[in-house]
């Protein structure tokens, strides 16, 4: 089957080069110069960057990578991303372009998760338990926060859970609080945003109610 696909590629490849050669005959390698920097080619270039990026690709990184050939603002880069995103959706591709952790990433469509899980036979990672999720939620909504403040809300020691969150890179030390004992302050990381598919911390659900709210909100039924 591998052989078949290689044959097909080899067969089709010359045609593509020929088509390009018409416009850029004098250039050895196709470049994104003024002539060739059509919207299609810029889009393809950005797609190539997305393909190789290990982490979510930022608009700044796109702008810098293309800078030699195309002067592009981040707003323009965002427009290219939007075109790609819509294109993948329209063409019914197996992956989607999603905005996550301050950048853009190609991710498989969720409907194909069963296929992928069959393909990747890696050991499954332990999922986050209720107690871990609660601790993480407190850190996410109240960051930066010290351990004692987390424990005041959960009403129980969180040392073990906090260590687990640090080990998994979901949380990191953000500095020290300038109070007696100078305890560590904790905050969430990019890994946290990626784990939950969030663009930024501000996109957490119910953020405004939880940031520093008085939960009573004046509706106590006191007798």
């Amino acid at each position, binding site marked *: 089957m591998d052989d078949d696909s290689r044959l097909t590629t080899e067969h089709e490849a010359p045609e593509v080069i020929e088509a390009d050669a018409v416009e850029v005959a004098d250039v050895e390698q196709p470049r994104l110069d003024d002539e060739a920097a059509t919207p299609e080619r810029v889009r393809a270039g950005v797609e190539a960057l997305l393909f190789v990026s290990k982490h979510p690709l930022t608009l700044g990184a796109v702008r810098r990578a293309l800078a030699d050939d195309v002067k592009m603002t981040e707003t323009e880069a965002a427009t290219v991303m939007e075109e790609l995103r819509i294109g993948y959706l329209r063409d019914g591709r197996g992956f989607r372009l999603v905005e996550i952790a301050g950048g853009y990433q*190609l991710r498989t469509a969720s409907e194909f998760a069963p296929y992928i*899980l069959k393909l990747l036979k890696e050991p499954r990672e332990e999922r986050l338990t209720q107690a871990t*999720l609660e601790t993480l939620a407190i850190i996410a909504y109240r960051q930066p926060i010290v351990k004692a403040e987390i424990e005041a*809300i959960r*009403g129980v020691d969180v040392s*073990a859970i906090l260590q687990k969150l640090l080990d998994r890179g979901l949380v990191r030390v953000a500095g020290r609080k300038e109070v007696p004992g100078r305890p560590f302050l904790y905050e969430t990381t990019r890994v946290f945003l990626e784990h*939950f598919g969030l663009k930024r911390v501000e996109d957490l*659900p119910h953020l405004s109610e939880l940031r520093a709210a008085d939960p009573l909100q004046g509706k106590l039924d006191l007798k």
Partner: protein
Amino acid sequence: MGNFLTRENYKVELEIFEGPLDLLLYLIRKDELNIHDIPISRIAEQYLEYLELMKMLDLNIAGEFVLMAATLMHIKSRMLLPPSERPESDDEEPEQDPRLDLIRQLLEYRQFKEVAQDLHTLELEQAATFARNEEDRSLVAAAERPLAEVSIFDLLDAFSEVFRRTAEAPAEEILGDEVKVADKMREIRELLQHSEVVGFLDLFRPGSTRMEVVATFLAMLELIRLKAILAFQRRLFAPIELALIP
């Protein structure tokens, strides 16, 4: 009561991540009580019952559980006094309901429990999509996720039912062979290998002694801790079921 399963015999080192606030919220939710107007005597009484149960099973109880018991008793005693006779607070605030601080704490914590559920949903959605060459990520797809897992309080609740209905063993039986938790662990595994899902109550053979019931329960907790089995409910307060983790 806890003396028939000595430390030498067996000690379940189950890490209990739930704290006293979890237990209080559990009790409130279970009886559909109004969190803004907690019947403090009733809650305190139930709270102490759970605490006793955990002590009897020799579980690792966090000191916070004992502290909360004292807090509840204190609030209860203050509630008995008419407002005018309650001790004056230092600042000149108007008369305050003795439950106020606790209620505030419970409400705040409950909000975080709720958003933890939202995060869980986001986590599930995200776990179903993959990026290229992704390292260190959850490969557990939504479909593979267990149904709602149970808290230690659900388990204790179910256990106390069984325990209550189990007759005290005649004296000669206590003198007989001791029940080993390790044997019960093997039994539970075998049971689950036969039938994939087993109800919590099915773990306990009719006519079991209290010693056996306790040993079985501890064996189940230990298997949960070892991540050999999973306890789950199909919906809130539905019967607890158990399955082997492959």
